[in-house]
């Protein structure tokens, strides 16, 4: 007895020691936060909603060439995309922004898979980390709630007459969180560091290969040269894109001895200051009151990482969270619990890809088979049944209304199982084995395995022998990435078929689909899912080389029309992102097209 007690006791003590080693301070931390919460007593004069209209009006005045367009639909888009033009719109004066409030109280926001341990632009990160990047850092080019671009810390950006050198004008009088001035030198240094050879961040991968020079400072501008004219370069500097055009304080960064320490206490220039983090739990931020225009509504912002939706929902319902990312199917539940439902429209778009559709002789090269698969799926039915009526059928790959290149005159593929069956018979494809590849690890779109299962059901119904394989993202991408395969390999793979592979994928939408489309649909793109230099390349090249936004728009619209008409992609559903909120969130408009909350600082009590 006693010896066993001794063993156990000592083991227990050992564990206790390990457990308590660093656990104690964290508990204290949480108490502190609770205290802060009780101070919440905010005086706000009348609610001033975020004034998008005003910004839009400013934009509208710029383009004169809009007159030349005859179709009404197109005109509507052009009006919204103007800020992306090489010559930026006039900077909105601070008066046009939400009325300044004195930030007080705290707000707790809960999302999943933030992975918010890292703050380093030199390591590639998924879009989820943007949840706090948007708060702690500023981007060269910002984004309005409606998805349009707006000046960030760069007040202007223009290209030289030879179309090879881009110059960004850096706003003056801005401060970092530690009080240092933000200088063009800081900007150039951060960006040069991000495109350095050993960097793996989005900048190095997306921007780096296009450049012929480093970023150079001249006066209050930073300029860079590209090897070829790159009309869509500014897009890569917008907060909407993965590359992260943030600015780090060079002096501070170097004084703390580099990224390892900077990561622990990052200093940025965004509307919130990094205050604290509990590893694996949350990060805490405090309002930065000296920001040149962004004025947070709450003093303390805590962003939690909670993977399980039921748990997030429980946190919101029990008052332990104020804002959560929910699912399109949560709307009813949120409403019945008297909670606010906020939506980011068209945040997700899903589609079918047909592997090797470009290879002559492959079944998917036969338009009838692609069409049959696409029209066999009842998009309305899935939207009603699976997504509680919160989705609409999509007509286009990656773009929704309001995005550059959204054609406006194409319809989603209809639901016509009889014709699908007929086409399958005509093509002699009955009973063929189809494998749907999909993955569940992508937080951008809800329940892709569920969507795939539904599609498998519809394909079974038209006589195709279908099954779903849930793989991880990289496996899926590798399967559809022909850039890493030689022609012989592809031939060998095709000989091995069936099963014929299709992918069901989802993604957030793109303001400008050129870059994404180039990766997969250009025969020299990075992934070369399609290699059709005669058909698809000219349209993409036209969009990529033109400096006229309207030309870009028209070329991309033609591209999407072609994908739709010839079934090179099978667009499925547009879905909004749904957020649940407590009554602490007075007004907040999530950014269109983003499945995560990207602008906590616009939350008003």
């Amino acid at each position, binding site marked *: 007895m006693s010896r066993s007690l001794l063993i156990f006791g000592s083991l227990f003590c050992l564990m206790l020691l390990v457990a308590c080693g660093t656990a104690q301070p964290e508990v204290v931390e949480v108490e502190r936060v609770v205290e802060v919460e009780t101070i919440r007593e905010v005086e706000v004069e009348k609610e001033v909603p975020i004034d998008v209209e005003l910004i839009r009006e400013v934009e509208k005045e710029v383009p004169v060439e809009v007159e030349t367009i005859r179709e009404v639909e197109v005109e509507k888009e052009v009006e919204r995309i103007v800020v992306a033009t090489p010559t930026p719109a006039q900077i909105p004066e601070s008066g046009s922004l939400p009325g300044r409030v004195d930030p007080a109280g705290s707000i707790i926001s809960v999302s999943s898979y933030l992975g918010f341990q890292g703050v380093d632009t030199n390591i590639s990160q998924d879009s989820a980390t943007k949840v706090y990047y948007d708060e702690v850092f500023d981007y060269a080019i910002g984004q309005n709630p409606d998805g349009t671009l707006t000046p960030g810390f760069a007040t202007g950006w223009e290209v030289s007459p030879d179309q090879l050198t881009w110059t960004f004008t850096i706003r003056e009088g801005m401060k970092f969180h530690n009080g240092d001035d933000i200088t063009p030198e800081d900007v150039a240094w951060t960006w040069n560091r991000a495109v350095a050879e050993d960097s793996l961040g989005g900048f190095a991968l997306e921007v780096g290969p296009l450049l012929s020079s480093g970023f150079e400072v001249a006066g209050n501008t930073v300029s860079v040269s590209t090897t070829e004219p790159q009309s869509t370069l500014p897009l890569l500097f917008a907060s909407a894109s993965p590359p992260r055009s943030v600015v780090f304080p060079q002096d501070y960064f170097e004084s703390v001895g580099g990224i390892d320490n900077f990561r622990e206490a990052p200093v940025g220039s965004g509307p919130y200051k990094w205050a604290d983090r509990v590893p694996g739990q949350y990060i805490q931020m405090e309002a930065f009151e000296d920001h040149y225009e962004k004025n947070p509504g709450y003093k303390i912002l805590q962003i939690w990482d909670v993977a399980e*939706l*039921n748990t997030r*929902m429980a946190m919101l319902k029990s008052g332990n969270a104020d804002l959560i990312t929910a*699912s399109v*199917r949560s709307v*009813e*539940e949120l409403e019945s619990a008297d909670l606010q439902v906020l939506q980011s429209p068209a945040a997700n778009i899903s589609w079918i890809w047909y592997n090797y559709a470009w290879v002559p002789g492959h079944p998917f090269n036969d338009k009838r088979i692609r069409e049959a698969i696409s029209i066999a799926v*009842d998009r309305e*039915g*899935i939207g*009603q*049944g*699976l997504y509680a009526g919160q989705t609409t059928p999509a007509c286009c790959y990656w773009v929704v209304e309001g995005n550059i290149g959204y054609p406006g005159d194409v319809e989603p593929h209809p639901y016509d199982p009889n014709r699908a069956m007929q086409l399958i018979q005509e093509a002699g494809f009955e009973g063929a084995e189809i494998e749907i590849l999909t993955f*569940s*690890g992508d937080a951008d779109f809800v*329940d892709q*395995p*569920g969507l*795939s*299962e*539904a599609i*498998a*059901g*519809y394909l*079974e*119904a038209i006589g195709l022998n279908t*099954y*779903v*394989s*849930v*793989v*991880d993202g990289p*496996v899926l991408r590798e399967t559809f990435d022909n850039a890493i395969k030689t022609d012989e390999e592809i031939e060998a793979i095709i000989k091995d078929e069936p099963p014929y592979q299709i992918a069901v994928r989802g993604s957030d939408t793109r303001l400008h689909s050129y870059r994404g489309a180039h990766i997969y649909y250009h025969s020299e793109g990075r992934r070369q899912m399609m290699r059709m230099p005669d058909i698809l390349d000219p349209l993409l090249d036209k969009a990529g080389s033109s400096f006229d936004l309207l030309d870009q728009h028209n070329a991309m619209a033609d591209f999407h029309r072609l994908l739709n008409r010839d079934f090179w992609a099978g667009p499925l559903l547009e879905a909004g992102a749904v957020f649940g909120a407590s009554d602490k969130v007075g007004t907040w408009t999530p950014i269109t097209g983003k499945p995560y909350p990207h602008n906590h600082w616009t939350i008003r009590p």
Partner: protein
Amino acid sequence: MANTTMQVASPASAWAMRLRSGLTVMRRVPKIPTAVLLILLIFAGFGQWIAPHSPVAVDMGNSFSPPVWHAEGTANNLLGTDKLGRDILSRLIRGARVSLSLSMFVIALGGGVGVALGLISGYAGGKVDAVMQRGIEVILAMPTILVALVFVFAVGRSFESVILILSPFLAARFARIVRGETLSVRERDFVAIAKVIGTPAWMILLRHILPNVFNTIIVLATLEVGHLILLESSLSFLGVGVPPPQPAWGLMVADGREFLTSAYWITLFPGLCILAAVLSLNLFGDWLRDTLDPRRRQL
């Protein structure tokens, strides 16, 4: 007790005696767990003729239909339908086979290997035993769920990969316990006699030792079925269990948890099935142990 005599008896009569004592014992089986297990076995064996609908037929127009006792419920789907309009009852019935066969395969594969290793390790002793014990200790030390997570991510999510990755862990558990049993049986007189008359080692293992550790194996296998069903559900929760659209119970609970409050029937019934199955298996296994193998009450 019946089985004390059994162990010293020669193998041939041991089998016969087990049969005889088995008949008397059968009268004392725990009734409810046995009944539940029998129903599950019938479902697993004849599910395709019992289930009213196909377990995978998608009917989007009929999704989230509640069970029959709700106002909107229909007799067509007694226990309601899931997010894709599939009949829950049919999926449960057909799922019995998926869930049970997964456990069976793992036990056949892992248990088989484990028993063989345990017998060899316990009988041979010495260096062979030492090396094997290190290996077993290491496998038991690995976090099952995490290793399964990594493995399934690497090779892809499928019924087979779940079986493949769970088997080694089960083999280690079997090997450890069978080895312990073998160690004690090895010292018995009839083994010594068999050795003296020159019976080959494999024959001794098969004819003399295996029958005497068989009780332990049966008990362990019964208890492990339930354990494996739960493990599969945990893997499904992490997205690496049996792939959809197969109607495994664990997968149904894991997939349906988004609707816990809005459509409780999607998770409740498969959850109850797991509960009933595991509970019955445990109670039945407990009883088996008490009857067959009273020395190892702490298995």
